[in-house]
């Protein structure tokens, strides 16, 4: 949309520079009292159109389906308006809300500790250790549904290889602690990679200055590094908390008798097909989620000033964790625990596909691999295609969205920012049901099309991407933007020359996240998928459902490999594209 404008802006930049800056300022600050040319008007129109498209699609694909769910929660037996659903559901599942919050808070807390530790280790280590840890994070960021929980049972179950086989314990993992542990580790890779990006931008000069002034490594960590990570830590806490609230897979598989709102929603949908109660439960779930969101915004604003002042060149974090005293030791311990657990878990997933269980003992086999290769791999191709589309469009969408939210005084900014986060707060199945409710009648009949699946993935994953982009944008100095304005550049020039390049690290994270999520998402599109357009993850779903764990593990392995390959390719391409810019 803004493409036709690009050459023109480049050409005129030089011209504008010579003009009185007042004109540019008018345009830059968007007060249109003064005279301005047709070209500037065009830039303004594009800017406005872009904003309208972004906000319009958020309304259509987020607000409208959610309103459909909300509406359904008031639906009485014969289609009348009623509040009875709420009373009934609260009486039945009120305690689950507290369970959800309890698990959410603890999971977010532990997950953040693991994430910060892992990120610090990756940032401060050098050589093979850094590569190894980074590699583990990249691999484990791809988390195909269900197989992680199955591996958890294999490793730490009542007869788990570790708990029973190695340690000789007979414990029961099917309870809330199992859920908390599982969630705490499974959300880490994404968070740690994100924090690692933040750490890479920490001002090396202030660390050097502190060291010159005789600060110990421990106090550098405590007084400089950790405070600078604060916005990132807040994002981790928020995302993990909300993700835990919305996660239904873990409590369903390993929760035993313990249930959360998310697992109750699954239960209401799958067991009773009671859309009304499921909708009410969704409304319940939104309470803590939205509460957490506004708390997060408050805290983030407080820490904004700190980060904006700190910007230096990217460099290796000069810190030896081993010399950081007790805190350093704890960080080492937490990250060590995390990395070992991840290695075990993924080794378990990879190996299950090649192990044939028999009475005489387990042995290596390629039988399942052959079985998998015999079935059609078209679904895998379609999955990759869909994931690529969602990753590209979604990432660009998130970048532009976060720019408007962070840097421009868009009316109802807070509201939109919250709105876009909502899909993240609901279990995927519900967002899927919302889409069916919203788009099953003309003129908006989208059910059974590819578009509904793509849109659902995109908007389900958008919240994480906008959070990443916003946090990264905070590290892009406002001064650069002002400089463009002063030099006569318009908003499009700012977007093109400051915002998008500044968001390059975010692009990589967003793309990776989008791609791996699209490849592994199950819940959100379970209800949307058309029999004629199946995705690979459904094969996985089917295999898990029938108890064919070997095949499920193989599909998971294949998905992981594909995601890694695509990510490596994208990293390579963007790396090449970015090089001229650096010089």
């Amino acid at each position, binding site marked *: 949309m803004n493409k036709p404008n690009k050459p023109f802006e480049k050409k005129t930049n030089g011209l504008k520079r010579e003009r009185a800056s007042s004109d540019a300022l008018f345009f830059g600050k968007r007060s249109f009292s003064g005279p301005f040319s047709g070209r500037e008007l065009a830039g303004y129109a594009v800017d406005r159109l872009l904003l309208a498209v972004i906000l319009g699609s958020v309304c259509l694909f987020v607000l409208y389906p959610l309103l459909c769910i909300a509406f359904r929660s008031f639906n009485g037996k014969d289609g009348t308006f009623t509040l009875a659903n709420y009373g009934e559901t609260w009486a039945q599942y009120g305690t689950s809300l507290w369970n959800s919050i309890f698990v959410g808070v603890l999971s977010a807390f532990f997950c953040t500790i693991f994430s910060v530790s892992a990120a610090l280790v990756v940032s401060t280590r050098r050589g093979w250790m850094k590569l190894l840890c980074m590699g583990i994070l990249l691999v484990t960021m791809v988390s195909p549904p269900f197989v992680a929980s199955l591996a958890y049972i294999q490793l730490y179950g009542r007869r788990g290889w570790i708990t029973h086989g190695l340690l000789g314990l007979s414990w*029961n993992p099917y309870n809330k602690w199992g859920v908390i542990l599982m969630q705490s580790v499974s959300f880490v890779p994404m968070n740690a990679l994100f924090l690692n990006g933040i750490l890479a931008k920490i001002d090396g000069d202030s660390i050097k200055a502190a060291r010159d002034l005789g600060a110990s490594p421990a106090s550098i960590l405590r007084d400089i590094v950790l405070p600078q990570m604060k916005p990132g830590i807040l994002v981790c806490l928020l995302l993990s908390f909300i993700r835990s609230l919305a996660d239904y897979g873990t409590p369903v598989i390993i929760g035993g008798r313990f249930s959360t709102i998310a697992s109750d929603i699954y*239960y209401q949908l799958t067991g*009773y097909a009671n859309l009304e109660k499921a909708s009410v439960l969704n409304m319940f779930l939104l309470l803590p989620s939205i509460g957490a969101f506004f708390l997060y915004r408050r805290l983030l604003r407080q820490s904004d000033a700190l980060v904006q002042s700190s910007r230096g060149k990217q460099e290796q974090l000069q810190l030896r964790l081993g010399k950081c005293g007790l805190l350093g030791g704890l960080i080492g311990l937490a990250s060590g625990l995390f990395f070992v657990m991840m290695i075990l878990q993924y080794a378990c997933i990879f190996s299950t596909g090649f192990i044939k269980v028999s009475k005489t003992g387990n042995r290596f086999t390629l039988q399942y691999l052959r079985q998998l290769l015999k079935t059609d791999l078209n679904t895998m191709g379609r999955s990759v295609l869909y994931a690529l589309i969602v990753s590209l469009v979604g990432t660009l969408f998130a970048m532009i969205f976060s720019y408007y939210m962070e840097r421009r005084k868009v009316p109802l900014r807070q509201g939109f920012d919250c709105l876009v986060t909502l899909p993240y707060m609901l279990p995927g199945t519900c967002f899927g049901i919302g889409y069916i409710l919203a788009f099953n009648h003309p003129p908006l009949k989208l059910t059974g099309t590819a578009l509904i699946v793509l849109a659902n993935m995109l908007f389900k994953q958008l919240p994480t991407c906008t959070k990443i982009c916003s946090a990264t944008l905070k590290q892009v100095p406002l001064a650069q933007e002002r400089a463009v304005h002063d030099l006569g550049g318009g908003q499009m020039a700012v977007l093109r020359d400051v915002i998008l390049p500044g968001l390059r690290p975010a692009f990589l994270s967003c793309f990776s996240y989008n791609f791996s999520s699209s490849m592994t998402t199950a819940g959100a599109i379970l209800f949307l998928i058309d029999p004629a357009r199946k995705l690979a993850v459904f094969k996985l779903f*089917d295999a898990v459902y029938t108890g064919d764990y070997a095949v499920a593990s193989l599909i998971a392995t294949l998905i992981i490999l594909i995601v890694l390959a695509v990510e490596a390719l994208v990293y390579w391409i963007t790396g090449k594209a970015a090089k001229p810019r650096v010089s």
Partner: protein
Amino acid sequence: MSKRVLSALLAAAMLLSMAACNKEEKAPETENQTPAENTTTEKPAESEGKEEKPEISGTMKAIATSENYVTLFDKFTAETGVKVELLSMSSGDVLSKLRAEGGTPSADLWFGGGIDAFMSAKEDDLLEPVTFEAASEIDPQFRDPDGCWYSKGLTIVGFLLNDKLMEELNLEQPATWEDLTDPSYQGEIIMSNPAISGTNYAAVNSLLQAKGEEAGWEFFNALNENIAYYAKRGSDPKNKVIADEFAIGITYLDDTITALKEDYDVTIVYPEDGIPWIPDGVACFKNAENVEAAKYFIEWLFSNDENLQLLAEIDQKTSIKLIKPSLEGVELDYSPDILMELDLSKFGSMRESILAQFETLMGDKAVNE
């Protein structure tokens, strides 16, 4: 080739003549299209003269419980020219999806799943009635009186034991349902949540019918003490038992379970005090895009023994013989006497109240945890 064309024409002629006595589903103008239709699909007409084939074409979208049925649908495609797209989904999810779609289903055929879900769907007016001649050969209790659903087999329920754990924990092999309430099994039995698993719903409903309400609930209260937890997926009891996680699983029994004996030390128990069962449904969705193909598929399936034999082979069960007693080539591999006596109509009508009561029963233990 010429023989084929001839028979096709013959079928077309027959269609034309029968169109008159057909129900209103066949609009008059479609008669004119029949010859063209026949040349494009060129299907061999069935040998029996009674066969009448509505014009069907395009793609039929089927939701099934498993992708294994693909060979059956391939046969259908080969004989009718209708392509079939298959998606596997649990029956509870199908019902949720149907309700959300509000009368615009995105699939045509529903193949497999506990009959309780089909009964609920019929109550919500989401199923299209199908009638055909061979339906009269189906035992009336295994088809809906209005033809909204048919049964394609029975799922029977029993126990799967993990021999290693039974020995290690020094447990006696349970022979009856009543045995399961013995305190020695505490925490070692796993079953699925009856709201999610049609199989385990069948167990609850059947046992309540057999024992009577009061004694029945007493039994489940006692059983609840021994159940580790109620799994939220139907295949979990089986999976957990073979993974050595639990000693006893209450699960469906079929030849796939029997086949587990090859690789695992497991024992299958057919409870002596009666085996609960539940019919497996098949139906077509009301207002579906290709409803004609789905309707014809049901007729096709039940009218030809060859198709039912193939189905029995895929399902790895012989219970289809009970559904259509005149079926040849499939012999029941257990005596029908071991099945509990049931009033199937209560499966639908009692569902809500049974599950509500079951939930309070399960909840009591969750609080104590």
